[in-house]
């Protein structure tokens, strides 16, 4: 049973220890992108090494190379000082490098122990005994308790992640790579993860933590390396990091990322904002009747979805209601029901005192309901259609751009050029298929279409998911300015910091119910965190 051999673990690791894994001058190109540009890094045992950077900084590519998913074009990878080629995920595991990817990589229909046994020699019979022994060993190491026979699909995301960490360490606990591990977790889950990471570090594991959140980098990291546009732009070694306050670290990292030029000051603000909540100081007039009144909404769900259960809330003009919660607790259904894309099984939706429960998308759109979906390409836009067509996708066949069913391409293109200019959409022309644009620009097309005129209620589903700093900021600005114009806004997001930044109130979805709504303000994080775990859900 080679896969369950106890790993050789050296004790008494000092920070001067030679690197367990290192990359030297690694370069990786993709068509049109230089993802990694001569990156050199060293990872040491007993150290949490944070790789900090925005989307597109090259973190995931670097991880892909260490995990054997991709090969570097130039440069070399060293394990224990020897240059090696990591040709496949299997080889990576054999070198003792375990990776926990951003998206859950477990088979939901198999049990915990079966998932962990995955990858054994196929000609052998399953050997539960030794596997269970190793499972108990790792459970003790991580300090977690999970039923080995539970079906993985039924575990919470936090528990699934613990199983993933076990899988990554299964064949030896030398190096553990965690790629944005906190993005799906509740605040409690993040806390637990932090403890697991510290335990592993103290046992001499080399941890590599990928994140874009400064706060996490400071809280969990012993050493911080900052990546930007495929290059390492700075490094804070442990001795220096220990002596720095959080504010000093923040400043140093921003300096590395953007230099001291003023033009990047706003990017820096967004980055800091991501990690550190900025509260809006605006009051909403709630003496008037609410614009949107939702009562006891219920939906029906197919397998794998979470239906809504008795969801009720009121929303006033100019107010931003954030919807928090771990992914898969009914947020998608709520957004779709509000947009009119999903039928209601029970309950009622009133818009300005008018019952719109049974109205479909076109009728709701006429009433001023707008929806910016999280599936930008596919649900939000049609990839092979031009930018111009996508900008009027929900008005096809209506005057004035269509006359008696005939498209007036002149006007449609004129309308598109106008929108492209006003919303700063970066596209070669209005006739370019929308799928060729970057994620940020597709989001701009979507925002332009949904927020152009007469919007009264706007629903945003994960509006900044996968966007870079600049586009994140633009999306946040659009949300806040719509609210300032008097639009009632619902923002669904799994990023609590984002919600704290833009919302007036934050509601928490838990298992299809609205577990509670809290006013944004001091202490909001803890209260939302409690609701996210279902603590106060009756």
């Amino acid at each position, binding site marked *: 049973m080679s896969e369950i051999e106890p790993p050789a673990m050296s004790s008494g690791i000092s920070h001067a220890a030679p690197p367990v894994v290192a990359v030297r001058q690694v370069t990786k190109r993709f068509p049109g992108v230089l993802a990694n540009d001569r990156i050199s890094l060293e990872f040491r045992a007993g150290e949490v090494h944070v790789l900090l950077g925005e989307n597109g900084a090259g973190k995931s590519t670097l991880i892909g190379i260490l995990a054997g998913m991709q090969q570097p074009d130039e440069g070399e990878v060293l394990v224990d000082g020897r240059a090696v080629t990591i040709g*496949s995920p299997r080889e990576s595991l054999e070198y003792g490098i375990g990776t926990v990817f951003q998206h859950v990589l477990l088979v939901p229909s198999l049990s915990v122990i079966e998932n962990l046994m995955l990858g054994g020699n196929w000609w052998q019979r399953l050997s539960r005994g030794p596997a269970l022994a190793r499972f108990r060993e790792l459970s003790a190491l991580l300090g977690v308790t999970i039923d080995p026979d539970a079906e993985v699909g039924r575990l919470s995301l936090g528990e699934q992640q613990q199983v993933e960490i076990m899988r990554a360490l299964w064949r030896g606990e030398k190096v553990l790579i965690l790629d944005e591990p906190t993005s799906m977790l509740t605040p409690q889950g993040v806390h637990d993860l932090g403890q697991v990471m510290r335990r592993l570090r103290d046992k001499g594991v080399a941890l590599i933590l990928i994140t874009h959140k400064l706060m996490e980098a400071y809280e969990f990291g012993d050493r911080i390396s900052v990546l930007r546009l495929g290059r390492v732009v700075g490094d804070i070694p442990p001795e220096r990091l220990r002596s720095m306050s959080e504010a000093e670290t923040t400043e140093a990292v921003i300096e590395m990322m953007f230099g001291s030029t003023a033009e990047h000051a706003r990017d820096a603000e967004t980055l800091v904002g991501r990690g550190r909540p900025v509260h809006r100081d605006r009051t909403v007039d709630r003496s008037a009747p609410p614009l949107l009144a939702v009562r006891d909404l219920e939906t029906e769900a197919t397998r794998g979805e979470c239906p809504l259960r008795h969801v009720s809330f009121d929303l006033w003009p100019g107010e931003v209601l954030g919807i928090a919660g771990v992914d898969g607790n009914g947020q998608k259904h709520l957004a779709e029901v509000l947009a009119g894309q999903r039928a209601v099984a029970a309950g009622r939706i009133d818009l300005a005192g008018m019952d719109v429960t049974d109205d479909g998308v076109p009728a709701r759109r006429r009433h001023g309901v707008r929806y910016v979906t999280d599936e930008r390409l596919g649900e939000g836009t049609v990839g092979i259609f031009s930018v111009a067509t996508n900008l009027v996708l929900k008005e096809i066949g209506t005057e004035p751009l269509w006359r008696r069913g005939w498209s007036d391409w002149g006007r449609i293109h004129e309308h598109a050029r106008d929108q492209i200019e006003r919303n700063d959409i970066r596209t070669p022309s209005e006739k370019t298929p929308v799928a060729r644009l970057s994620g940020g620009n597709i989001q701009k097309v979507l925002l332009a279409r949904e927020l152009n005129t007469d919007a009264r209620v706007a629903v945003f589903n994960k509006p900044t998911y996968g966007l870079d700093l600049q586009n994140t900021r633009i999306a946040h600005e659009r949300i806040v300015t719509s609210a300032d114009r008097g639009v009632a806004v619902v923002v669904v997001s799994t990023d609590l910091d984002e919600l704290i930044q833009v919302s007036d109130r934050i509601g928490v979805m838990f298992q299809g119910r609205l577990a509670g709504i809290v006013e944004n303000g001091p202490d909001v994080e803890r209260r939302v965190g409690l609701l996210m775990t279902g603590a106060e859900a009756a």
Partner: protein
Amino acid sequence: MEGLLTQPFLTALLFGAVTAGIPLLLAGLGEQISEKAGVLNIGIEGMMLFGAYTGFVAAYYSGSFGLGFLAGGLGGMLVASLVMLFCIRFGLNQIVIGIAVTLGFEGLTSLLHHFQFSRTYPRLSAAPTLAIPGLSEIPVLGPGLFQQNAMVYLAVALVVFMAWLFRNTYVGLNLEAAGSKPAALDAAGVDVLRTRACAVLSTGFLAGVGGAFMANVGAGIFVPFMTGGAGFIGIVLAMLARGRPIWVLLGAILFGVSLAMTTALQVAGVNIPTDVVQMLPFAMVMLVLVIFARHSVLPPALGLPYVRGDR
């Protein structure tokens, strides 16, 4: 109608049901392996038909039924290797390739048969049977179930073997993972494409043996287009079985009985128009689909080519 419950009638019905059901069982089990691994193998009809042809030719010239099954299995595997190349290696659409394979081999087997035998349909001698001592003495059930070709017992044993395989081996885990979450299998260090390729080749082998059984044991001759949708019924069985071989067996029995009824009722001289009787198996397929199709659970990655790093 009182002639229906006579001993010879029931014996013939059982024997016919087994003969008709075994090719469906083999096709269904084969398809189940592919589907578990995430490959929707529509080309299975072509694999059966080509297996029927190669199996028949081998048995005809060698006189050995064992060689016939082997050649049938290899013929099916040959067709499967096309599916493997196009759908798994190159990631082309599994439905398009599957249809192409089925249509292509329907034509090819007709052509080959025409070249080789012109318009004659040579017949094999009756397939050897293996009577199980003791059990075969039971009236009705004995001659109906326990005096069959050895392949019948092997096919039923395969059900037990596959159930064990899925539950107790790494092969079972790998197949499940390849269809349910291929990226997880890849991350665990197992080659997804290789796993799927093996699954497809096994499907081809089993479907080919099923086809050879149909030609050599069931009919004794090869006729172009003789599978007549058996492969597609196999797909239905696999989809309804939720990954459990025992359900494929039950489904194959159900369809086998209804196919055998067609012949048995005609032999018994029941006064129903033959057209109505011949509709029976197909009415059964529709009935089963209407009743059970809602309960079919398919692997999430079924039909999707796997590309490392794609999400």
